[in-house]
């Protein structure tokens, strides 16, 4: 993240050769049949979720979200799931696909084995509301508890606070979080103990603890030193694997632990 304005390259050529396959003739994208097994739960009818099977014709370039839409729009309008941006930036559609937590809008069918049924379920550990929708309140509650905002002391500067590019880089990874809950709801500790803050809250604490402008680190470390805090993590790496933003979640948790240990109590 070095901010060197000189780094831009010289004026590009007025004309270049274009790769053959982009000039034309790449052919049509093949379509194929896909089977989906979706965990359905209608709270007004069902006491338990059950699987239903849907067959749809899809393209390899389609996402799982496209298939869910196709089922909802063409087969059964009552299938319920959250979604908004459709390209992996809003965090609405974390679901379990073939047993792994992922964003439906960021999982391409071509990357799944479409010879077998694709299994889609709600994420685990949060109260199930309907079909693929869970109650997100407990998740946001943990997030709010770590004081996810810049805490400063002393008088406000008139201009911006200065921060070196290196200091800015220090917490870059954890600023990417979209609060999708894929990590927290893939964590075995969280499944058995809903009181555990969970990886996402720790990631967001990390984002402030390692921000050179912030003075609230001690407050947050106190919160996370709690019995439901960072020490509950058993480093199974599920969260890191689940994170659709590629955040090094386990490493962030480890760094927060080290910060607690290095602090003089």
């Amino acid at each position: 993240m070095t901010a060197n304005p000189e780094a831009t390259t010289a004026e590009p050529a007025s004309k270049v050769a274009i790769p053959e396959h982009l000039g034309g003739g790449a052919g049509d994208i093949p379509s194929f049949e896909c089977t989906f097994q979706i965990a359905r739960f209608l709270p007004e009818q069902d006491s338990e979720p059950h699987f239903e099977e849907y067959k749809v014709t899809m393209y390899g370039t389609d996402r799982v979200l496209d298939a869910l839409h196709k089922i909802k729009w063409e087969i059964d309008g009552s299938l319920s799931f959250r979604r908004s941006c459709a390209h992996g930036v809003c965090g609405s559609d974390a679901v379990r696909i073939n047993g792994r937590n992922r964003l439906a809008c960021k999982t391409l069918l071509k990357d799944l084995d479409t010879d077998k049924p694709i299994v889609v379920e709600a994420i685990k550990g949060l109260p199930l509301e309907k079909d693929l929708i869970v109650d997100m309140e407990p998740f946001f509650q943990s997030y709010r508890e770590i004081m996810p905002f810049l805490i400063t002391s002393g008088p406000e500067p008139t201009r911006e606070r200065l921060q070196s590019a290196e200091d800015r880089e220090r917490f870059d990874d954890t600023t990417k979080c979209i609060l999708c809950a894929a990590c927290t709801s893939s964590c075995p500790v969280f499944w058995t103990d809903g009181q555990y803050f969970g990886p996402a809250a720790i990631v967001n604490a990390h984002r402030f603890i390692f921000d050179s402008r912030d003075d609230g680190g001690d407050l947050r470390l106190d919160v996370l030193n709690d019995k439901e805090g960072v020490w509950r993590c058993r480093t199974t790496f599920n969260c890191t694997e689940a994170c659709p933003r590629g955040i090094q979640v386990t490493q962030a948790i480890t760094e927060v632990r080290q910060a607690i240990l290095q602090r003089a109590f």
Partner: protein
Amino acid sequence: MQVHDYDVVIVGAGGAGMRAAIESGQRARTAVLTKLYPTRSHTGAAQGGMCAALANVEEDNWEWHTFDTVKGGDYLVDQDAAEVMAKEAIDAVLDLEKMGLPFNRTPEGKIDQRRFGGHTRDHGKAAVRRACYAADRTGHMILQTLYQNCVKHGVEFFNEYYVLDLIMTDVDGVRRPAGVVSYELATGEIQIFRAKSVVFATGGFGKIFKTTSNAHTLTGDGVAVTYRNGLPLEDMEFFQFHPTGLAGLGILLSEAARGEGGVLRNSEGERFMERYAPTIKDLAPRDIVARSMANEVREGRGCGPNKDYVLLDLTHLEPAHIDAKLPDITEFARTYLGVEPYTEPVPVFPTAHYAMGGIPTNIKAEVLANNTDVVPGLYAAGECACVSVHGSNRLGTNSLLDINVFGKRAGIAAAEYAKTAQMPELPEAPEARVVEMIETMRSAAGTETIGAIRKDLQDTMDANVQVFRTDETLRKALDDIAALRERYRNIGIHDRGKRYNLDLLEAVELGFLLEIAEVVTVAAIHRKESRGGHFREDFPNRDDEHFMHHTMTYLDPTSEAEGIAGMRLETKPVVITRYQPMERKY
């Protein structure tokens, strides 16, 4: 019927809504109603930057920024509003930094700035570095930072509450709002939020088009609700098509890609913008670049099997530079098109991106009832509003700025108004219209599907109301929309339940889309000239003599506009202060 009482109700928790909430929440009892969890709002998708003449890396000032905004909007910008925005931009960026936003930094540790289309030094002499940014996820960082500060200030959110109507009442002969009618997604309950002031911040309506950078949820709810209550909509014909959407998908690749040195090429490998805008080339305003691209394709120089897109070439940039400045968008190209931007050019085509028009307001963010009167207690900010700072074409990075400047103004004004106003009396059965709509919809057993009607709407809008328009294509779209509205009456939905009934809400949203698409098209027929984002092939020139005005469209059962019964079109003068209209050349 549950009735909640608040001083201020804010509808929408994107950038504009939350910026308003931070101000209002500290001054008055405030509720924020949002159909999405705040952090899901589409402000989070914004990539490139937010501009302000900080002059951190080179000489710059707010007057140049004002000029660029006015010229970029093809002189349909209200110049008093542009000046307010450019002046307050500096504090808007500094406010965000103080709230904790992690901007990229210069070697001295100041907020770094980069180039963006249409932003120039000294009235067009050369491109200037004015866009403040956080990699290519500036909108994400703005949305997160504002949410974090709402948490800090204890702002009261009602998440997944859909506002479906505005309650208007008469106080001493003046129409003003008394609150809103909402639908709670989790329970299906309809509730009333009574308030002294109401702020709309519901975002755009890109989903009237098929190829769009907008989220599925951007269905123009606030805009349609305001219109249905007899209030005007301004400049609805102006929609921005962003040049670089991923071909076939519409997912945005920020203009920052060109700001950082990327260029567009046709099938002959030619950097064709050198022909269309010799001075600033690939960084010309979006409408010009989008039309140039569409023109290359029409003249047979498109790429790919159907020759229907052009290429964004980043291959001459250092991979390390790409990783530092454009990590997210290059990942989109890899994930969704399987293209490696280090070594291969990326297929792109214009994508419906931004609504310049919307709910008319003055510079205090007060909603206008007509050309001269405001609706006391009603405010709008962000993409759903039309101040108008963007005129006929918005410059990149001016919207993240707009939502911060006018979101803040709306929040302060709404709270100040609430301090002196009386709590309005509710009219009789204010929820009646919504209850009827919901109950009819929930039991709708017709043969038409939401999916099919929406697809046909989006297809006709893409085919007929996009980058190139003529009277003929626009009338074709109007006929199609009329037929679709007829089909909409015969809709059927599957989900009869009350809990999380998104089937029902998609049907309601489709109703909003149909309404808005019609207004956009009628306003486009009215404007027989080409200006900014609105290009009429049958009237290819700007016509200041007849069209240097804003259009105001009203729902009016006693009137007709361009052959459509039930609508009224009026015009509103443009505010011109410093800059007399000139030809827009780059």
